[in-house]
């Protein structure tokens, strides 16, 4: 479980944001989600299973996701997670707030540069 020093800790809510976004593209099962995020981020972001599964459960409970029985890429039974309408709304909200935050940070950094 040793961490690659090149990776950094995610900020609060980042994991949720990524899960929501990834699942919006297409419903996935757990491992697929991990691989997807890893690939898309070019290995810069690595999700820890230790946080992924509890986060999935939390989002299930909040009604952002729903799960149903499905078949994995290897043809074995697994659970596929899918975004609900509430999940989509949450994603939009989170993205806009993330954008605002990013904009804010960028501005602050810009001031320091100058």
């Amino acid at each position, binding site marked *: *479980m040793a961490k690659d020093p090149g990776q950094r800790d995610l900020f609060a809510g980042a994991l949720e944001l990524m899960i929501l976004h990834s699942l919006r593209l297409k419903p996935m099962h757990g491992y697929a989600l991990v691989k997807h995020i890893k690939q898309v981020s070019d290995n810069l972001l690595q999700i820890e299973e230790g946080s992924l*599964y509890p986060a*999935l459960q939390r989002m299930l409970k909040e009604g952002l996701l729903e799960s149903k029985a499905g078949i994995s890429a*290897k043809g074995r*039974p697994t659970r596929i997670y899918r975004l609900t309408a509430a999940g989509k709304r949450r994603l939009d909200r989170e993205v806009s707030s993330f954008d605002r935050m990013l904009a804010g940070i960028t501005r602050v950094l810009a001031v320091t540069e100058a």
Partner: protein
Amino acid sequence: MQWLKDLFTRGRHYRDLAVSIEEHLEERTEELMDEGMSREAAETVARREFGNVTLIQERSREVWQWPTLESIWADKRFALRQLIRAPGFTATAVLTLSLGIAVNATMFSMVSAFLLPHLPGRNPQNVVVVSSVSPHQRDANPVSPPNYLAWREDTRLFSEMAAADESRTASLTGDGEPETVRYATVSPNYFEVFGVSAALGRTFRAGEDEPGRDHVLILSHALWERRFGAERSAIGRTVRVNRENYVVVGVMPADFQLLGFAPQMWTPLVFSAANRTVEGRKQRFLFLFARLAHGITLQRAQAEMAVLAKHSETDFPAMESRWSAAVRTLGDFLIHSFGIRTALAVLMTAVSFVLLIACANVAGLLLTRAAGRRKELAIRVSLGASRVRVVRQLVTEGLVIAILGGGTGLLLTDIGIKILRANLSFNEAISAVPVSLDVNVLLFVLVVSLISATLSSLVPALKASHTDTNTGLKNESRTSSAGRSQGRLRTALVCGEIAFGLCLLIGTSLLIRGVFLLDHQKLGFSTDHLLTAAVALDRAQYSDGSHQLLFVRGLIRKLQQIPGAGDTAVASDLPATNPETVPIHIEGEADSRAGEQYSALDTVVSPGYFHAIRLPPLRGRTFRETDGENAPRVVLVNQEFANRYFQGRDPLGKRIQLDLQGAALPWGEIVGVVSNVKSYSEDARVDPEVYECFLQRPTAYFSILLRASAEPDSLSSALRHAVSQLDPELPLARVMSMQTVIERQRNGNPLFIRLLGTFGLLALVLAATGIYGLIAYSVSQRTHEIGIRVALGANRSDVLRMILSEGFRTAVIGSAIGLAMALPLPKLFDAIFAGLHFGAPEIYLIVLSAVLVVTAFAAYIPARRATYIDPTLALRDQ
């Protein structure tokens, strides 16, 4: 209701989660295999990357749970499973604890009934009782009528104030057998003070305390049920009280009861002219019940009443000198006047010791188990369980034991209270107190169970949680005897058990011996084969001495005709029942010596008395039939009187005078000396006593003594018959044998002794099993070591000595602590229980040896077992 849905759907979520994680691992494994790893290596890597599967699963599941509550629940389930797997351990622990809890709860039911009494009426916390404080600081004395009348006028402290004479007896006749009932005369506003109204009919009206309007009567619920068949038509009926007609106007509700006072009916309190005079100040017989006015505190009432009492003292120095007044809340007053607090405190202390010993036993058991589970705990800690989690798990186990113990204890308490109630009937006041398994007792059991759980499991749990993972896993019994600190804790527990057990046993033995000696003291007369009964001649029929004497002469004649009846007599007081003390004057001498006023007990007896109770004269003669009204006045004195007031001189022929409430009787000549009778059967004291002759000074209140050739009780119906032939309306009270009279005077003493004895024994048994258990465990832990010792040449007696000396060392330390704790007990008891003797150093020795013998025995059984350890088996073991 989301949580409810979660509760039912989460099983599915758990399954989904497990499937997801499994697939996760599986896919990763296959991926790695695709990269060329062997299946085995791939699985290992996949798992390592994933992390602690169980932990992650647990975290994920927690989303659906109330984490703390649920993990406690899970702990509880786990604990239950663990306990079921060790039924012997569980049964011992639960039984031990339930015994400890049950004795505590049973005693607490008395505390709840007597010290937290039910108070009747509306806002009973505002009801107070005003009483007199005597010059000797014995407060809670009654108040005189003039003081009541003056205080009622002079103070605005109370919105309502009523007086009651709570301890009267009356003959109730008409409709069935005449009977004597206890009743109270009360001011008309008495019931308003408490704020209770009648269950049926009405309470008294203002003005019904005036002569002529006062012949109204209120019944207690019990009397109404018993004598009037609970009929509504009882209201308006006329009954005869002391041969006068009274109209029943009301029935009080069943729960209108003041602890310790048990009047069966109420009539209005009417003051005579004499009550209102200055002389009336001497007659203190009223308790004043009052309701505090709005905004008045108890402290203020106390201060102002003290000032009012001071005024009385200034105005009437002869009567009120150094008398004062006290104000108490109703509850406080009732508890105080019942006087059961100290006995209950002693009993509660005793049972709390029993509980401590029980907790020590359970702690020992848990410690033993924890030691056996060291490895399991070490594994759990190394697998990521936090220390808090381990402690919680172990405390939960203690809690489960305590709850099981509490439940079982509650069942035992129910039985205990039933037994207690059966034994709590030695007087009317006690049997009127509802001792039951009430809410207070339930709460008490809950609290005590929780405390026991904490006491018995926290220390072993903390101990166990400090298990070092490394040594815990390494520390196989092959390489070690019991860990050092475990051993120390065990020794401390055994020491504690011995110390508390010893202290409790010494305390109970001292008390039991003191009370037993008192209950079995020689009273100085023959109590067997005596039937007694109390008579109160009323004014209506027997207005003066000559009428009373006429009745008694006729009565004695009649009684002597009863077949099987021997000597017959009447006496103002039965022997050893605390007759009145009066001041005396001896002719030709000062009235006091060294500041002490001469006084003596005064008993009026008929001539047959001394023969009937088998009290022979030591000198001179006893009374004769010829010592009548017109004969010279004669008296008898007891040995103590002669010794104290004549000191070797001959008392015969000397003349003394008795001073009855200010009115001196004529001088009487001492014509005989009789041997001593104890003043009171429950007191070792013998006081100087004077006997007067009934023929010369008849009294209206007296007791009949009848010596029977057979069982005295067999004559009681003949006695009743004889009395009713003389006067059909005259009730006989307290018809019982002299031995019953004495037994009743013992009050709760026999019960007190039995309870203490039971607790002492229980403590000894519990401590013994605890000590046995702990030493047996220590031996079983050392099997290996002992095996080595035997293999190296130690013989059986060496092994025996080794184990015994370990037990003995502990016993000596424990006993020393216990003795030190018990040393101040006699002093303490002397202060609490006046009149008992606790100076008995031999008790310490006897109890100490008994405890040592029991300890030695408890240690000997496992020690002997140790000597039979076969070295080859012991070393091969494990």
